[in-house]
């Protein structure tokens, strides 16, 4: 049989329509499309795709189960390795992971592994979960700090192993970046909530409104718990540190997205948290966060949204798919420009930005070509709202309040990668707090590694 060289397309909302709503852009496969796509998988013996998956989902096996229409077994297979499949099926950069290694890439497009994962995960969400029966096998207790993908995964795995697990979360809602950062139209919040409910149904207790480093310290947790996992992410926004950055109308991407996603400012005044949307908006940065912010502000009524990026599209860290989506929606890309200063009006509101044109030089340490300023190329660009999306660093609270825990100069926690062990006895860490901003799935992978090490430590003293 001849294999189709192309992925089965996923139905999407029309760009003209979707920029007016917050509904999901990609609508997902139905069973017919899923079966058609599953047919493409060659069931390779060596399964190169699995090696590309940070949590080693048995990909050919779950696709085989889809082929046989055994959808509930397919999701069970995925969940052996991945606690949050409806999320990862949507937000994983499959093109650089499992799909990058797929054998089919030799002749065309890889199998749409993410879309198939999402299909069976959504099916399960519609039907309701099958909750595995778990027996408390021991009286050991573990504290997990942070309820992002790292914390949720670590907690879920430990609960399955029979431990009592308590998650402490600073915000009033669990989910980490999944709930406050990634917008509704890419990852509906009801899906995140359902995945959190699943983790709770495994017996994990989540305490919101608890800030570790303030309400409790890590040292205090160690008195009450046998082990502690730190998965607090990298949530502190970086700014450009150029003149005028504190003018009204300049937001960090984190503040903007938190107001909109977590606090539902897009429904003001029904919800109490406000947001001020400009007419002409500049989003500074070229990553996923910049794309999310740009597409969100467009949906909130901005007339023109410009991505302002120092290099070219080729160097952009954002997923290719997100760049395409942004362009389809009408986001304007102003490339090879670097912000010099912001200019405000008499009321302290931003009214323009001074930009300098750049050109590309030799590759730097990241392998991307370095932007070099072009002398006397500065110009003033009028705008009335700016979103700064140039990255985040770990929150300093735990570093400032925990003894004997080693941090790098970037503020990330030092661990042994194979075990997740930190320099402090009985304390483990993983996710963005260790790597700096990375991906959902790598945070989950790190949560899994620590869960396994905690089990070895507490049950076998290893």
């Amino acid at each position, binding site marked *: 049989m001849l294999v189709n060289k192309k992925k089965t397309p996923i139905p999407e909302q029309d760009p003209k329509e979707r920029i007016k709503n917050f509904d999901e852009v990609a609508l997902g496969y139905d069973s017919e499309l899923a079966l058609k796509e599953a047919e493409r998988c060659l069931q390779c013996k060596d399964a190169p795709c699995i090696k590309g998956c940070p949590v080693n989902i048995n990909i050919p096996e779950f696709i085989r189960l889809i082929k046989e229409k055994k959808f509930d077994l397919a999701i069970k297979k995925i969940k052996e390795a991945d606690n949050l499949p409806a999320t990862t099926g949507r937000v994983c950069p499959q093109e650089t992971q499992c799909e990058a290694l797929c054998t089919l890439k030799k002749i065309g497009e890889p199998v749409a592994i993410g879309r198939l994962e999402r299909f069976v995960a959504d099916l399960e969400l519609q039907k309701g979960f099958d909750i595995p029966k778990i027996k408390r096998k021991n009286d050991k207790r573990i504290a997990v700090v942070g309820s992002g993908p790292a914390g949720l995964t670590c907690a879920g795995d430990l609960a399955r192993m029979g431990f009592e697990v308590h998650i402490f979360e*600073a*915000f*009033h809602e669990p989910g980490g970046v999944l709930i406050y950062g990634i917008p509704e139209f890419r990852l509906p919040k009801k899906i995140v909530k359902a995945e959190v409910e699943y983790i709770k149904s495994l017996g994990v207790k989540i305490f*919101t*409104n*608890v*800030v570790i480093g*303030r*309400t*409790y310290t890590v040292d205090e947790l160690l008195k009450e718990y046998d082990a502690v996992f730190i998965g607090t992410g990298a*949530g*502190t*926004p970086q*700014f450009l*540190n150029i003149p005028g*950055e*504190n003018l*009204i109308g300049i*937001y*960090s991407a*984190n*503040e903007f997205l*938190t*107001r909109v996603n977590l*606090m*539902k400012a897009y*429904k*003001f*005044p*029904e*919800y*109490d*948290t*406000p947001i*001020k949307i400009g007419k002409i908006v500049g989003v500074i940065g070229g990553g996923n966060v910049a794309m999310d912010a740009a597409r969100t502000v467009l949906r909130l009524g901005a007339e023109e949204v410009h991505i302002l990026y120092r290099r070219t599209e080729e160097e952009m860290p954002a997923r290719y798919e997100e760049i395409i989506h942004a362009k389809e929606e009408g986001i304007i890309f102003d490339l090879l420009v670097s912000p010099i200063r912001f200019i405000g009006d008499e*009321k*302290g509101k931003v009214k323009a930005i001074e930009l300098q044109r750049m050109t590309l030089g030799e590759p730097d340490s990241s392998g991307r070509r370095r932007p070099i300023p072009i002398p006397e190329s500065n110009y003033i660009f009028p705008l009335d709202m700016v979103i700064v999306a140039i990255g985040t660093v770990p*929150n*300093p*609270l735990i570093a400032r309040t925990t003894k004997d825990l080693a941090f790098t100069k970037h503020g990330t926690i030092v661990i042994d990668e194979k075990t997740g062990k930190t320099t402090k006895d009985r304390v483990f860490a993983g996710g963005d707090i260790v790597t700096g901003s990375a991906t959902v799935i790598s945070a989950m992978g790190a949560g899994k590694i620590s869960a396994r090490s905690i089990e070895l430590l507490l049950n076998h003293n290893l």
Partner: protein
Amino acid sequence: MYKIFKKIELAPEVKLIEVYAPLIAQKAKPGQFVILRVSEKGERIPLTIADTNLFKGSITIVFQEVGKTTKLLGKLKEGENIIDLVGPLGNPSEIENFGTIIGVGGGVGIAALYPILKALKEKGNYVISILGARSKNYLIFRNEIERISDELYLATDDGSLGYKGFVSDVLKNILDLGKKISRIWAVGPTIMMKVISELTKPYGIKTIVSLNPIMVDGTGMCGGCRVTIGNKTMFTCVDGPEFDGHLVNFDELLLRLKTYKEEEQLALKLLEEGEEFKIASK
């Protein structure tokens, strides 16, 4: 859920509530604050902790009903709950035996000043307090502050109590006496803290202010609370809320505080209209 034990109206539109929050009560130190939310659709707002009671496991919060959230908070009755309360946030005040210190409090800021002065008094400082309000019936926490002060001065805008005029006038008179003052705390409206900081600068007396910018998370994750201190940008919630008043860019803060003025007015108007509607339809 965090239950309200006790509620008192201290002055027109100024209320005190005691809330059950044992974890926060155990940890809270002078100068720290909480962030709370009053309803599922509510916003997160910061409020300073005015007192704690370990025995009851409660914290005391004093607030002025200025916006929708504080209005809704003011409507909650004893026995009702605040849905989200997180803290204690921010860094505690630096409490040492400095010698003689002056505490200047204005409006509801007096409640926030109280735990700081109390701790300073316990450390052995000679405490001079200057409290200001619009008029007599707006002055709160007078007895509490009096108990822990070695000297107490009062000022009202209309002269209905104490000196007629501003706390800054009273402070200037005291400073001009030439007594050695080691440190000054000023807690109150931003404009008051600005005036006090400008006043004390030529005297070279370190002046600590407690800033109250707009916040979202209160844990360093949004940068909405950023302020300029000297020539550096800092996040009030993790680097403050107390800063050296002589280094604060107050003009920037005053502008930033107005960011959502129109939205705040709209929310308030809708709240009031909603209530009129409720009353009318009863």
